[in-house]
């Protein structure tokens, strides 16, 4: 008796369509065993739908994380000191390529994009510094 009450409470909490619940209650009055079978049939697809979300999180690759970290650093450092940013960007691209070979992920793509942007910024800053170093103060000429 307690077991039937427990099953009925679970039937209320499951987010199935409201039209199915009265049908199950009427059938439960006639055949209690079928009510339990219908309940498990409603629950199993929800468990199967939740399983892929857990596996997606574990696909995260360390190389993809490192590539995005290096990509962010290449953008931040590439604007100030061009060659350091370019070096970080090259490292980020290498990590992103190897990460994509193992398993494709959004982090690796973001790392690849950030690394390319960082390299481009670094090269532009290096060219600008080289071109305008004569007109600037002598510290730029000494630094680059």
């Amino acid at each position, binding site marked *: 008796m307690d077991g039937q009450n427990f099953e009925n409470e679970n039937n209320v909490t499951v987010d199935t369509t409201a039209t199915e619940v009265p049908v199950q209650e009427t059938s439960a009055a006639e055949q209690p065993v079928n009510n339990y079978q219908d309940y498990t049939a409603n629950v199993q697809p929800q468990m199967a739908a939740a399983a892929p979300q*857990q*596996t997606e*999180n*574990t696909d*995260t690759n*360390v190389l993809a*994380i*490192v590539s*995005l*970290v290096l990509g*962010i650093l290449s*953008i*931040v*450092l*590439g*604007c*100030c000191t*061009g060659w350091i940013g370019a070096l970080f960007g090259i490292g980020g691209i290498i990590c992103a390529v190897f990460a994509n070979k193992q398993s494709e992920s*959004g*982090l690796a793509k*973001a790392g690849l994009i*950030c690394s390319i942007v960082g390299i481009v*910024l670094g090269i532009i*800053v290096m060219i*600008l*510094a080289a071109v*305008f170093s004569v007109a*600037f*103060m002598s*510290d*730029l000429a*000494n*630094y680059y």
Partner: protein
Amino acid sequence: MQTTTKKQRSLEDQLYIAGWFFLLAGSIGIFVYLHIILPRLNGYTCVVYRLFGIYCPGCGGTRAVSALLTGHFGQALWYHPLVPYTVVIFGGFMLSQTLARLHIGRIRGWCFHEWHLYGAVVIMIGNFIFKNILLLVFHITL
């Protein structure tokens, strides 16, 4: 289910080792930049700022690190929010993972989430846009 938790643990193990490498390399890099390179750059400012009159995505980073090293967290947040964000997220991960591995105080190590890194990208781009709006529209400098 057990395989997913094992994979998650191995991911955090690898991140923990990579984190120590980054911590060592970053500490050496910051020390070399602040004590060796920066004193030689007399009055050196950003090339982008000098040429175009706008802040680059890295402007304020050095000042933020200096402010953070002297204990001024609010100033560091103003100069470049990515620096204190990195310290909180990365420092919290490394500290909690270390305490968890040493079995101190029933502390569970922080888990890695992808929004940690996407948040850093958003902060970097947002800071770049916000600081330039302040500079060009309201004439508020760093």
